[in-house]
């Protein structure tokens, strides 16, 4: 088990390295002078010079790469061009709202989607199944920000149930905190509920066609036992996979949702940095999110053998 985790951890190194190189390359391979690109059209020579120095762009590219990797290994993501503050510290300050949003979404998604998927598979082809499938197609077709504005329009503006926007940290009390999170979490969950319910349903239906399901029926097992005991456990691996993919891809949704609801999290930070062309911050956030993605994949990989003994440690 430990050896397996170590092996998996080691296997993430090349991917992380590749991410670091891609992030490094995005700026350097863009045609034109990187400093000028970052500074914008009406930059003065001093500004350009300052950017070059802060980001080390005045050195030859191989040296820049070495320096970039060296700093990364020390956990140094550089400093903001705008404020001069360390990027890592800025990220830490903005973690809270994003974590709250992501955690709430994961809890809602998993606890709603899997039962929905099971019920749909159980009633395959019937009305209930069709309803779930219709909801599912709707769920991942309607963009998060459209859902968000529809929710705001009806539940906040028309009904006045929730504040329109904003965020209160948990230290201000649970109710103000939760009240402002309900709509963002609902808006963001739609896509993932749809996705996970759909995969749960189809995985179960696929397993239901396997030979060992026929064996279970030949034993005299009831359909409930066949579904919950034999089919669901065998469908666990694809369901786990899609939950992993869902969590890993939450990031895009977080960026959008935070923008709509004005939550001061990492997603807002991305947008602020982009609008201000604060490239070290963008770079740092991309790296952070990518490592998060890789980490989630790692967790999923480690969980696989628990659900399927054929996958060995």
């Amino acid at each position, binding site marked *: 088990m430990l050896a397996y985790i170590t092996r998996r951890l080691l296997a993430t190194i090349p991917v992380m390295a590749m991410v670091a190189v891609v992030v490094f390359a995005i700026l350097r391979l863009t045609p034109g002078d990187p400093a000028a690109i970052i500074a914008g059209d009406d930059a003065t020579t001093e500004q350009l010079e300052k950017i070059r120095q802060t980001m080390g762009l005045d050195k030859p590219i191989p040296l820049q790469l070495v320096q970039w990797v060296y700093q990364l290994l020390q956990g140094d993501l550089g400093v903001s061009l705008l404020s001069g503050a360390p990027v890592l510290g800025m990220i830490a300050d903005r973690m809270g709202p994003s974590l709250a949003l992501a955690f709430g979404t994961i809890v809602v998604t998993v606890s709603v989607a899997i039962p929905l998927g099971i019920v749909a598979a159980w009633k395959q082809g019937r009305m209930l199944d069709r309803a779930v499938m219709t909801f599912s197609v709707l769920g991942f077709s309607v963009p998060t920000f459209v859902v968000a504005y529809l929710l705001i329009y009806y539940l906040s503006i028309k009904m006045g149930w929730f504040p329109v926007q904003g965020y209160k940290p948990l230290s201000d009390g649970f109710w103000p905190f939760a009240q402002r999170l309900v709509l963002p979490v609902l808006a963001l969950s739609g896509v993932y509920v749809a996705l996970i319910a759909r995969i749960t349903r189809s995985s179960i239906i696929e397993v239901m066609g396997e*030979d*060992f399901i026929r064996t279970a029926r030949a*034993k*005299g097992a*009831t359909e409930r036992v066949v579904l919950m005991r034999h089919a669901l456990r065998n469908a666990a691996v694809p369901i786990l996979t899609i939950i992993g993919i869902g969590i890993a891809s939450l990031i895009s949704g977080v960026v959008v949702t935070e923008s709509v609801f004005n939550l001061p999290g990492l997603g807002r930070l991305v947008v602020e940095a982009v609008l201000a062309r604060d490239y070290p911050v963008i770079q740092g956030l991309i790296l952070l999110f990518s490592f998060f993605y890789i980490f989630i994949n790692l967790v999923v990989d480690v969980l696989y053998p628990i659900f399927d*003994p054929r996958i060995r440690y």
Partner: protein
Amino acid sequence: MKIDNLAVQVVGDPTGRQVLENISFEISSGETLCVVGESGSGKSVTSLAIMGLLPAGSLKPSRGRILVDGEDILAASPARLRELRATRMAMIFQEPMTALNPVETVGEQIDEVLRIHSKLSKTARRQKVLAMLESVHMPDVERIYNSYPHQLSGGQRQRVVISIALILEPRILIADEPTTALDVTTQKQILLLIRELQKKHNTAVLFITHDFGVVAEIADRIVVMNRGHLVEVGTREDILARPREAYTRMLVSSVPSLIPQKREAPVTDIVLEVQSLSKNYSRKRLFGSGGSVAAAQNVNLTLRKGEIVGIVGESGSGKSTVARCIVRLQDPTSGAVLVKGEDIARVSGPQLRPKRQRVQIVFQDPYRSLNPRMRVGDSIIEGLVNFGTKREAALKKARELLGLVGLSDDSMQRYPHQFSGGQRQRICIARALALDPDILVADEAVSALDVSVQAQVLKLLGEIRDRTGIAVLFITHDLRVAAQICDTILVMQHGSIVEAGPAAEVLTSPRREYTRTLIDAAPGRGWDFQNFGPLISGAA
């Protein structure tokens, strides 16, 4: 048990097409009834109908009764049907690989039967499961109890499936091709086990198979089915020695004999010489190499013009590896493959391409051997065009070849899906012959075919050899097929050749223990199907 005038039809098919019609037979306690038929005969549908396991929404019984101990299965409620399963009638399936739940231990899976149908305590159930595992002759039952299916061999898995089926001592056991996916030696053990348990509990066994060897081995009575109809029912001697129906007669006589005909060993030129061929697979590991597995070791063989050399062996013996190395679909690790004296084991890329003309291959699965998007004619001429023949000339040759393999000219314009399995295999043979190769490798080329079609394709291969003098390397797991067609036989085990010699010699007076085991395990070896009688010669 009695089946009375059973019919099964496709659900929602307005034409009311019947998958089964007028099926009636009986089976009594302690009796083994074999249901034989080729693919599409409806034998598996019959067995599923008895279990009440017809796929809901696609097949349903439309007429008749199935009486088990006087109770009509077709009229039983779903709850009653569940009660009867595993207690009154039980089933074992073809694929032990997929018939068990991969994520539960085999102990839990056998235990589930007891949980459903009995009120025994946990410890009592466990004792009973362990006793059952003992009675199917499993070693170290405690360990097996806690094993997952993927940790067991195919034969062991089938023993687990049998345990599930028989732990409650049902009145009737339905066995749907239970040994087809197994090697002959394992098959023999499983057949003996079923017979043993049947005797012990006086169970009625309904044994579904396509293999007449197995039938001759175990049947008390036989039901012959064809295209959803019942052809003939009778005792084993009735069907095998005195078949009344022409179809039965044709089927039985298509089964190749285990005793090869005496043939002169050819003394023609050597066209293929394989010298100490080895193929190792390296296991992939993250750090360093995880060692290697030898799929073939130090294999030597010679093939003469007009000769048919068979390589026989069980799965994993390395026979296909050897074939694929000779055709250079795989790269041998070491050794030489001399085609007319020229080594092709080491060349690659553009140097290899022209050499490929000399060796051609026919594969096992006729449904995957032809590009479904290409017309048959285009498939046949592909090789010729590759080597510069003009399209017109190539097409002319393709038509000749189709004639040679017994297909008409208009086949050229058609697509593979318009042909049956046997016809497709003929097309594959035509395609392989188009380049006038010296050597034809047939890798289990008749193994996927029904026995009657198999007989035709074997005959065709023999005729082609006689007419063209092509040398054939024939890979098969089936000793009967090898006996039918091969001049020389090589027996492989664990990647090595353990015995080689003229077919008659190897099959009638084997020198090696392993060869003898293989021959002993061949089912129905005491019966001469083509002559409808027991094998009389002093052989075997």
